[in-house]
């Protein structure tokens, strides 16, 4: 059985006390919990502070372009449906630049798990508003505040019936690890929006701000009730629920594609000759 030590890797380049450390640890815990060896899982990320995560644990990874993690992850799944694929990236990456891919992945429902490090800011580029910034968030690029309505990916996931929609908190590793493991165990798309403090550029939504608001959804909460889940998803100003907010079952992308039904594509090899019979059409 793999242990946390097997996942040891490079030094991080994050600021001390950054919420990303918690997410990194939770990812490792979740992988160990699932008994996955580093070579048995693929991490995919875009660009940003969050997106550096795959560098900081030993694993297969594809650290691609800003905003493009989701289609890359889908492609990996297309090629090798047996590989668990985990996307770890930032709110700017997944919800801003990558918004179209998120929207359509929700419709498509590939079997991948998305962990969004939602620090409500663009960290790596030094503190511009992100799609999840509060309206009152003032930055050098937004001297009058970030006026666009705060984007709520959890609510969108519920609207579009993503099979697993959760909200985690980077300071609660245990719960977060559990959410990630459950997301990965879910067939189909799983979205975990993680509240993550950026100690350097987001002085508004700091740890205290989050701690004052977060609470855990109780045993009695019914995550399969879509209307109720939508209401929960929109709690924010005063209280922010943590946990699995929504669950449902839906056809998974690939199950409906003949090519993928026969197991991982990469395990199969074709020969040019097999194709020759198609020439008859052109004779």
């Amino acid at each position, binding site marked *: 059985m793999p242990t946390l030590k097997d996942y040891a890797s490079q030094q991080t380049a994050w600021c001390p006390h950054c919420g990303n450390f918690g997410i990194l640890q939770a990812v490792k815990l979740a992988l160990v919990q699932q008994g996955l060896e580093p070579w048995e899982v693929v991490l995919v990320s875009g660009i940003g502070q969050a997106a*550096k995560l795959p560098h900081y644990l030993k694993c297969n990874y594809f650290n691609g372009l800003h905003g493009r993690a989701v289609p*890359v992850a889908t*492609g990996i799944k297309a090629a*090798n449906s047996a590989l668990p694929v985990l996307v770890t990236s930032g709110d700017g990456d997944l919800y801003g630049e990558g918004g179209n891919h998120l929207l359509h992945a929700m419709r498509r429902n590939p079997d991948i798990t998305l962990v969004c490090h939602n620090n409500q800011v663009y960290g790596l580029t030094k503190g511009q508003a992100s799609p999840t910034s509060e309206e009152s968030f003032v930055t050098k690029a937004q001297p009058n505040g970030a006026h666009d309505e705060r984007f709520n990916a959890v609510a969108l996931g519920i609207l579009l019936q993503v099979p697993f929609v959760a909200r985690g908190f980077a300071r609660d590793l245990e719960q977060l690890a559990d959410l990630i493991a459950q997301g990965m165990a879910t067939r189909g798309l799983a979205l975990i929006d993680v509240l993550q403090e950026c100690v350097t550029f987001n002085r508004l939504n700091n740890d205290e701000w989050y701690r004052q608001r977060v609470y855990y959804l109780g045993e009695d909460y019914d995550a399969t009730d879509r209307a109720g889940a939508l209401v929960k998803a929109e709690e924010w100003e005063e209280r922010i629920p943590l946990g699995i907010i929504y669950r449902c079952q839906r056809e998974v992308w690939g199950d409906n594609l003949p090519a993928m039904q026969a197991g991982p594509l990469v395990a199969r090899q074709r020969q*040019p000759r097999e194709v020759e019979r198609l020439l008859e059409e052109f004779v």
Partner: protein
Amino acid sequence: MPLDLNLRLSGEAGQGIDTTGSLLSKVFHRDGYHVFTHQDYMSRIRGGHNYFQIRVADRPVEALEEQVDLLVALQPRDWQEDRADLREGGRVLTEAEVPEDPAVLTVPFTALAEQAGGRLYANTVAAGAALALVGHPLDTLEALLEEQFARKGAAVVEQNRLATRLGHDFVLQHHAEAKLVDLPLLPPHDKLLIGGIEALALAALAAGVQVYSAYPMTPSTGILNYLAGHAAEFGVVVQQAEDEIAAINLALGASYAGARSMVATSGGGFALMVESLSLAGITETPLVLGLGQRPGPATGLPTRTEQGELWFALHAGHGEFPRFVFAPGNPTEAFELTFRAFNLADKYQTPAVVLFDQYLADMLMTVPRFDFGPLSLDRHLATVEEIGRGYAYARYAETPSGVSPRAVPGTAEAVVEVDSDEHDAHGHIIEDAATRKAMVEKRLRKEQGMRREIVPPLLEGDPEPEVLLIGWGSTRGVIAEALQVLREQDVQAARLHCSQLWPFPAQEVAEVLRSAQRSFVVENNATGQLERLIARETRLPLTGGVHRYDGRPFSPAGIVEEIRKQI
């Protein structure tokens, strides 16, 4: 006199002239002729004025001619539009009554179609009528109709047959004296009648493509359709993505995970893929990209042809990285070079662009049967020894060739780490100058190997020509025919066809240029793109260029005329 007959079917979008055109082409092809067709159509689904033109010959032909011998105008309203292209002595078949024009023969397509079973058979009537006028038997057409409509039931087949016969007989009865020629059955051959798009898609299947992702865009959509049609049979994931950026990133993810992957699009979609092309470059992820050019900028003329994206293909993407750029000249080359692109992309772990255009995509041509004998699928993946165990594997290990052993994720005790940031041998993000320098050099060093595998340009004609015609991509056939004409006119001439544009065969081209008195690059663009590439790579002067940039392809006569003006 060799036989060389040009037949044009014209009508509105939606009147089925492409179906009928394909059928007639196949009739002649099956009956032993060589066929070359091309289409001219508008960016609309119904109405307008389109045509399908078929050249029938008793020897190989590889270009269109502007003048036609027989014009079948399905749309009585606007047959006059095509009248100008009628050759002296040619004939028009139309429904319109044109008492004054001796070239025009009236056939009541609609009435006969209704007699056969309905108005929609009008184009089948026309096909029968056309065959009668060129003295060709109906048998093959009837057999093809049976093949094509069998699944729609016997009645439909029968009505179609009846329609052809009604058209045929009407011409024999009323216009027997106008018959243009007698086209007998020739000995059958085993050649293919295939278009550029199908050849490209077939090559992808032959090369074992496993993931094809795309967003629809003319003239590449045919590849999507063809592969989707065969996806279940050959185990291909064919995914229409939400946009082109998703398409290429999906393909790159799949390629990273070990699947042979491809995308295809047109200039506008390729533009959206440019950032990810650069990602393929730095991550050293193999990928084949089909780029179907059409007249730009932007939306331009979406259903027409141009060679306006050579420089774009050469330099798309930020930063410096190696790539292949191929430009097949006909369906045979489309098959061969696309297949080659897959193997070379894998071998050098780099993107390979296959440049084509609407003209190549849509042309149908009688070509020798594709030879599957020599085809082998070379994946160039790392061996077990190269991978080792204990996580020793490094995706970007330094090697003399610049090519590192490539493993795929899911390999025991190896992690495959790829990164769009600059990285070390393991794929870990770095910032130091020395590693950066070494990685730039490793990537660019791959070009040395790539250069050794350049597809040499094709040279034909007089060894020390007065006139050298140079071309690339889809103008291959038309330049070949223009060359013939020039030589028949006693011009000492030769042609040079480049089907690989990068790495560029600079030395070979320079040598040929030096042997020629005057050299002209013939290009379907306004700015002389190959001309400027030759300038950069050889520093040699050229005499001039022959350009066409109105969205239409060249004809041999058009080229000859232009050359005559310039010499």
